[in-house]
């Protein structure tokens, strides 16, 4: 704000509660225009982005958005050349749309006709067309008429230049996109998950693909003004990717993704209105990014925490079953079932054995007498089940997979925990229903 602050001085006057309230409920005209615009954009981008992400075209959209720059400048130059108002938003958007589509076609062309892969094709189109845009932009600023000064606002976005008309246009486009996607939901889903199935249904896959990419181009174009072309792709993919951690059904994905996009737009708009020197576009992207990080960590579907919790629970169950089997095997060998003999059955740290034994005691699976451990009736039943699974699988491997008896222990060690009842029944049918009382291999020799 005031020049002359020291560099590290990024302090600002905290807005009063009233100011915050006024922005939050969109009382001020200018903020209302911007925030409603970016919210509508967030919804449209969230919906289209879901399919874009599923179709694995995330970075094609990045190239598309970079390719709009020459489109904007060419449209500007043509309009000025024709003696029209150079900054007609509609004209610029048409130019952007056309060049965006050209960019996508070039990518497809390079990929189809050369040995280069997607990544190189995208990189080439992105950098070369953007470079072309920069050249043309410099030329446009030199044109005597038309005043091209605002054109570079499209690169990083300039939400403050939005007027009520823009917001209306964005909202109408968002509604149209919503309607189109809802009508073509089934077809798009097939396009993303199983193209060949769609083709077998007689749906025009190529035309559907074109429709989808056109929708992406339209969303990119309406994002140019507020978010800018460098970050437009974030509006498409970040909310959609975050939604993947909350649900799995396509309908709910669309809903959640649109919601995240919309809230991202709202919160980003609010923050940039309240805090000085906060450009709207990047702030929206940061808000969406923050939401992505949160989803990535805490999301109920495949989120880090959930996955770690599942792994932890599985490990815990496996360890329990291992110690039960160890105790069963030790006690069946008529040796003293003390701590040392249990710990010697497999290579595990002593502290873990201690912890597991006390857990067995807590669950009433085992009781302790001095240094001697014995299984309770409950523990015995569970241990017998595990040991039986283990030995069934060992016998199966020896009889049907021709594996040497001293090699089967390790394989069975992994399988015993996941043998379900139906699987056990099948094994019993194969191997006979005798309770397997002895191990098919000497217990001392472990493979």
């Amino acid at each position: 704000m005031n020049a002359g602050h020291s560099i590290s001085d990024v302090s600002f006057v905290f807005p009063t509660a009233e100011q915050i309230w006024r922005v939050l409920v969109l009382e001020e005209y200018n903020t209302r225009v911007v925030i409603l615009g970016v919210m509508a954009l967030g919804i449209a981008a969230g919906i289209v982005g879901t399919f874009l992400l599923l179709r694995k075209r995330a970075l094609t959209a990045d190239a598309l958005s970079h390719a709009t720059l020459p489109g904007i400048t060419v449209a500007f130059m043509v309009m000025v050349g024709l003696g029209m108002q150079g900054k007609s938003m509609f004209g610029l958007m048409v130019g952007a749309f056309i060049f965006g589509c050209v960019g996508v076609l070039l990518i497809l062309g390079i990929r189809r006709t050369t040995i280069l892969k997607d990544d190189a094709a995208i990189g080439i189109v992105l950098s070369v067309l953007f470079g072309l845009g920069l050249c043309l932009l410099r030329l446009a600023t030199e044109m005597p008429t038309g005043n091209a000064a605002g054109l570079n606002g499209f690169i990083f976005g300039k939400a403050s230049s939005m007027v009520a008309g823009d917001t209306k246009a964005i909202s109408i486009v968002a509604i149209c996109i919503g309607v189109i996607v809802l009508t073509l939901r089934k077809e798009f889903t097939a396009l993303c998950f199983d193209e060949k199935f769609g083709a077998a249904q007689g749906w025009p896959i190529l035309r559907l693909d074109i429709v989808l990419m056109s929708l992406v181009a339209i969303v990119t174009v309406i994002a140019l003004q507020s978010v800018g072309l460098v970050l437009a792709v974030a509006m498409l993919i970040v909310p959609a990717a975050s939604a993947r951690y909350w649900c799995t059904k396509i309908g709910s994905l669309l809903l959640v993704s649109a919601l995240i996009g919309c809230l991202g737009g709202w919160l980003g708009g609010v923050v940039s209105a309240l805090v000085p020197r906060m450009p709207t576009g990047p702030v929206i992207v940061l808000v969406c990014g923050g939401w992505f990080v949160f989803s990535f960590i805490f999301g109920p579907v495949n989120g880090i925490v959930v996955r770690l919790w599942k792994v932890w629970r599985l490990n815990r169950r496996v360890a329990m079953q291992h110690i039960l089997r160890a105790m069963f095997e030790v006690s069946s060998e008529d040796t003293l079932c003390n701590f040392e003999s249990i710990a010697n059955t497999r290579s595990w740290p002593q502290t873990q054995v201690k912890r597991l034994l006390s857990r067995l005691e807590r669950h009433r699976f085992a009781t302790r007498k001095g240094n001697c451990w014995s299984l309770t009736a409950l523990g015995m039943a569970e241990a017998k089940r595990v040991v039986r699974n283990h030995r069934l699988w060992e016998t199966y491997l020896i009889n049907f997979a021709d594996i040497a008896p001293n090699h089967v222990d390790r394989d069975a060690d992994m399988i015993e925990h996941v043998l379900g009842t139906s699987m056990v029944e099948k094994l019993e049918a194969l191997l006979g229903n005798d309770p397997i009382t002895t191990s098919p291999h000497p217990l001392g020799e472990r493979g």
Partner: protein
Amino acid sequence: MIWTPIDTWICVIASLCAAACVLPGCILVLRRMSLMGDAISHTVLPGIAIAFLVTGSREPTAMLIGAVIIGLLTAFLVQAIETLGKIETGAAIGIVFTVLFAAGLVLMRQAVDHVDIDPDCVLYGAVEFAYFDQITIGSWAVPRAAVVNGVALIANAIIILIFYKEFKITSFDSALAMTQGIRPSTMHYLLMTMTAATAVAAFETVGSILVIAMLIVPASAAYLLTDKYGAMFLIAIAIAIVGSIGGHISAVTIPPVFGFSGTSTAGAMAVVVGFLFFLTWIFSPKHGVWSAAMRRKRVQQDIIREDILGLLWRLEERSRENSDISFENALCIPKRSVKRAIRHLQKLGNICLEYPLWRLTEQGRKEAALIVRSHRLWETYLDKHFPQDVYQLHQSAERLEHVTSTQMQSRLGDAEKDPHGSKVPPSPDN
């Protein structure tokens, strides 16, 4: 226009920078990770912004360290999101670089009053003005950018030469690399470090957009031109240098033709290098679109000529004159192709015109017999091993006759008559 030392230095700086980018770029393209290069050259921005906010100065080492750290962080985050978050690579890259870039923009806005670098400059750089920022080495005054990019080029060249074999193996077969005791992940992060360091060295002078162009485009063009690993680097460097110099020349010469004073040098370099890529895309001898079309055309012509020879031979066999027959109707091919094929055959001495009829010469008769022999042997063979409607045999044999060598003929066995009852021409060896 007048060529000044400034122009020379612009070309030198841009060439050095382009060559420095090409070295990691070739490996990125080979490993199909070009877009990591794109992502890293974007995330240089937050790295620089953070380094600036922390140290409060434009100290180059701090900026280098900041950018390299953020570059590695980008690579790490992409991998983490991809593997832990089960999201495909492209989307992971898109998420990481856009969010980090947005953070960089916000940070830069926060310090906007105190910084003389702005986001625009990050994109297009200011190679036009790089000449004026000079440092003295010994008694020479050299633009700082030339030194920085030169150092980056030399460092990259040394790293690539040292790890030449390792990069080669990991690029093509990372499983094999593992068995040879090379850790692909180490090479991956080494490559990412190189990319980030090169991007930060280059960004100030040429801007990140040219960095992306030089990382990916020359390497892709070279990939279409050669199948050799070492040659790819050299060709790509040559393309990058031609692109840089050509870019500057066109930036200062082409716009004045239309009444403008000049245009963005970095942008023009990206466009020229893109144009060079376009040329290789079309005309590359091995993988070009045009060359492939020409190859197809040649094969097509060969087939038409062989068909005409076969037709003449069969007419002779049935002792019918060819006056009432038109080749284009008999063979269902356009008249133009027939004319060209006949001219070619005449030149080869396979047919001659005994007005108004075309006749096979002795040499032509021999060649035609070979083709008809192939055809009829195939019909016999197919009839024997894949019994089918006799009339369908003809279609398959019609295609196979053109690709049958004499060795293949002898392996097809021998036969007196084909399934239609026509005589199989004898082998020329007997």
